[in-house]
C-alpha cells in the first residue's frame, strides 16, 4: 500500500486513479489507512461480491479467513480490464503499463 501511496504523483501524471478493495470493515480500513498515511480511497466490501468481477477469490494461503487473494487490476475508461496480475504489486510493471496506456489514450 505504501508503494501505491509513494507512486500517487506518477499515477496522476499518467491520468490513473488508484482504489483499494478489501473485505475488511470500514473501521478497520480507516485505522489501517491512518497507520500508513494512505490518502487514496479504500473500499470496504465485506461480503466480497466485488471479488469475482476482478477474478479474485478467497485467498488459498490463509484458509478459513475471509480475505481476498492479492491482485492488481487496471481498468480502462471503457471499463475493460487491461491488466491483471496476482501477488504483490509489481510497481515498475504497473507504471510502465500505465505510461503506455496513457500514450495510447492520447492518440487521435
Amino acid at each position, binding site marked *: 500500500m*505504501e508503494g501505491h*501511496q509513494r507512486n500517487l504523483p506518477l499515477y496522476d501524471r499518467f491520468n490513473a*486513479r*488508484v482504489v483499494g*478493495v478489501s473485505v*475488511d470493515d470500514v473501521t478497520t480500513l480507516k485505522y489501517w489507512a491512518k497507520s500508513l498515511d494512505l490518502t487514496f480511497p479504500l473500499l470496504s466490501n465485506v461480503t466480497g461480491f466485488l471479488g469475482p468481477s476482478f477474478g479474485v477469490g478467497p485467498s488459498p494461503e490463509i484458509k478459513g479467513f475471509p480475505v481476498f487473494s492479492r491482485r492488481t487490476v487496471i*481498468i480502462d*475508461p471503457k471499463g475493460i480490464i487491461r491488466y491483471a496480475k496476482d501477488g504483490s504489486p509489481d510497481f515498475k510493471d504497473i507504471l510502465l503499463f*500505465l505510461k503506455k496506456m496513457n500514450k495510447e489514450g*492520447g492518440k487521435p
Partner: protein
Amino acid sequence: MRRHIGMLLCFAWMGMMVSACATPGTAQKPYRFSQQGTIIWQDEFEFKPPPSNWRVIQVEVGGEFGFGFLKVDSGPAPSQSMFVYDEEPFGCSTEPGERGREFFRRYLWSTAMIADMQILEKKNVNVLGGEGLAVVAEAKDPVKKEKVKSKVVFGKRGDRVVAFYLTQWRPMDGTYDPSAFEVFDRFWESFRFLKKSFYQTLVEDP
C-alpha cells in the same frame, strides 16, 4: 491541458504484508570490481567494498531492501551485523526528515523490538551529493534477551527518498562492535549512482 483518460487502478490485498527474504548471493554475481577497487553493482551503483568477511545478500521476493552485506559476529546468537541499500524504505514522504519519522513506525515491525525503540542520535548529513538525515537507534527485547543497535541514513535519488541501514544484533549482555558502523559509514559515504533510476527515466523519457 492535461487529458484525463480516467483509468482506474484497482487492487485487492490480503491485509497482510509479505516479508522479504534475504538470501546469500547466487553463483552469477551481480557486481564487479572497478580498476579503482570499488564495487560496481549491476552497472547502476558504485561504492567502496566492505572487508572480505562480509557476505553479499540480495532480495529475491518482496522488496524490503535491495542488497547489502552480512557478517556473522563472534559470540552467541543472534550476534550478527547487516547493512543494506534500500530503494523503497518504509514511508511515503519525499522529505528525508519526515520520511525518518514514518520509517521508524514500521522499522523492525516483525520483531518485538519496535515497541522499545530508542533514538540515540539524529543529525543532518551530506549523502548522495545532497542533504540527508542519519539516525542511530537501539532496541531491546527483554523476553528474548536480545538487543539491536541500528544506524539509518536517508538521502534522495531524484524525487524519491532512499535509505541505507545497518542493524547489529546482540544477546542482551553482549557488546556492540563499532568497527561494523565504520564499515557501514564507508559504504554510504562512498555510494554513488552511475545512471538514472527507473523513476527518473520513467518521467523524463517520452
